[in-house]
């Protein structure tokens, strides 16, 4: 139990009296692939939004690597080590693929370069820029977008846009990667490829991944542990097989 990277205690949020999420307790271990599933409206994306600082929770706390990050801003949380992708893709559409990744690398300490360095074009600017590009190419290689690096991101096909989002999140060098429906809209081949990529990310970057997904094959084939949500509360928790076969869960999904 020493290696818990993310822990939530009693997490809850309500909007105008409506409880969207309540009493969610998660414990995610290092290098785990963790799944968050549940029917539409169960509050999964809301939990992502709380974890990344988009919303402040009404109750409960979030700990990252033992540190309380509840209510911090998105930027701070990202710097502490949580990166995410979005359910409705949010790329920087007017930028090339590699630029999207370069934006992700922006705040990495090894690429520090002040406004003054850049405005006066001091040597540091050029050095950093070169190093950033090398690193960006490296990340693009991992997700398999090296070839398309000079395409405008809005011109990429859907599946590749999702991969680019992952690459951009990876570039911020997180401890924990949140993927919001990464396989949505992908065909079986692409899904299979994505599974390989996610695994590779875990192994190559020592990453922990928390993902939301509706594709149960994807979840059960990939995730070590799963939490099932319904109406904002935890319905079941455990290994993928345990949780997904829980009678409550089946009822919630089939609507029995």
């Amino acid at each position, binding site marked *: 139990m020493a290696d818990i990277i993310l822990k939530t205690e009693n997490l809850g949020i309500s909007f105008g009296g409506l409880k969207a999420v309540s009493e969610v307790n998660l414990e995610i271990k290092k290098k785990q692939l963790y799944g968050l599933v549940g029917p539409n409206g169960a509050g999964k*994306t809301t939990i992502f*939004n709380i974890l990344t600082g*988009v919303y402040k929770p009404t109750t409960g706390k979030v700990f990252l690597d033992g540190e309380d990050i509840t209510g911090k801003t998105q930027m701070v949380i990202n710097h502490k080590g949580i990166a995410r992708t*979005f359910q*409705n893709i949010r790329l920087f559409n007017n930028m090339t693929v590699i630029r999207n990744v370069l934006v992700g690398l922006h705040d990495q300490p090894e690429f520090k370069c002040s406004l003054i360095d850049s405005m006066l074009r001091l040597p540091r600017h050029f050095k950093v820029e070169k190093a950033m590009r090398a690193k960006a190419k490296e990340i693009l290689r991992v997700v398999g977008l090296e070839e398309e690096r000079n395409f405008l991101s809005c011109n990429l096909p859907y599946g590749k846009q999702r991969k680019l989002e992952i690459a951009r999140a990876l570039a911020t060098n997180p401890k924990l990667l949140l993927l919001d429906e990464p396989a949505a809209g992908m065909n079986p081949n692409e899904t299979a490829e994505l599974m390989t990529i996610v695994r590779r990310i875990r192994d190559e970057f020592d990453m922990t991944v928390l993902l939301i997904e509706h594709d149960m094959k994807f979840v059960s084939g990939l995730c070590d542990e799963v939490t099932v949500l319904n109406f904002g509360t935890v319905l079941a928790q455990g290994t993928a097989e345990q949780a997904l076969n829980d009678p409550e869960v089946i009822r919630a999904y089939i609507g029995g």
Partner: protein
Amino acid sequence: MEFIETLLNGLSIGSTYAVIALGYTMVYGIAKMLNFAHGDVIMVGGYMIYLTMAGIGNPILGLAVAVLFCVVLGISIEKVAYKPLRGASPLAVLITAIGVSYLLQSTAQIIFGSAPKMVIVADLGNLTIGSLTVPYYMLITLGCSVVIMLTLSLFVKYTKTGRAMIAVSEDKGAAQLMGINVNAIITITFAIGSGLAAFAGFFMLMKSPSLSNTLGAMPGIKAFTAAVIGGIGSIPGAMVGGILMGIVEALSLTVPAIAPYTDAIEFLVLIVILLVRPSGILGKVRREKV
């Protein structure tokens, strides 16, 4: 007593702003554009009243002619200048609107000359109750504005066209799919907005008979400010914002020390309100989905 008079004055200034702001807000809500030429439609309305008054001498007829003409003008501006740009960047539309504003102003000067016209719409006198003196025009302005606002609210809420307007403002694409003729709705909106501008021109001339080609410029900006204060896109917001602006204006003009800063104070009110409520007093906050 003086305070009540000032307050009433503020109300009547404010209700004129509100009527102009309604035009801004509706066009904004539906066409998603800042119609910077809206103020100049007021001016055109003023000149129509002037022409009719000079010819026939009946202010009510003048108002009717002005409303008709402005409606036609509003529709034509929309068709010629804005419609080709539907789907283009909102900034391009903004710049075109500015172009239209210059165009209207300079055309008015070419046609009517540079000298401001004196248009005395009607000599109504004052209502005196005890020591309270209220000019009748204020009461007429107030009364008409209230009727306009009520009618408009009811129209938008209960008629088919009105509901279609709300639908278009919510989601143009979806409205189209539901069989609403979006182009027609936008045209109707411009027609209503421009008609209201003619009314505003009438109120302004009743209050102060001076008519020049820059008549609508500053009131236009102030009414836009009022629409934003109230929450742009909101019909009651336009009324609240307009009246607030009017009262602030009237009050600050009575204090000699701050009177020269009146415009600045009105704009300051805007900034303060927006900092407290970023989408205006009655504006809907639409959070972007994450």
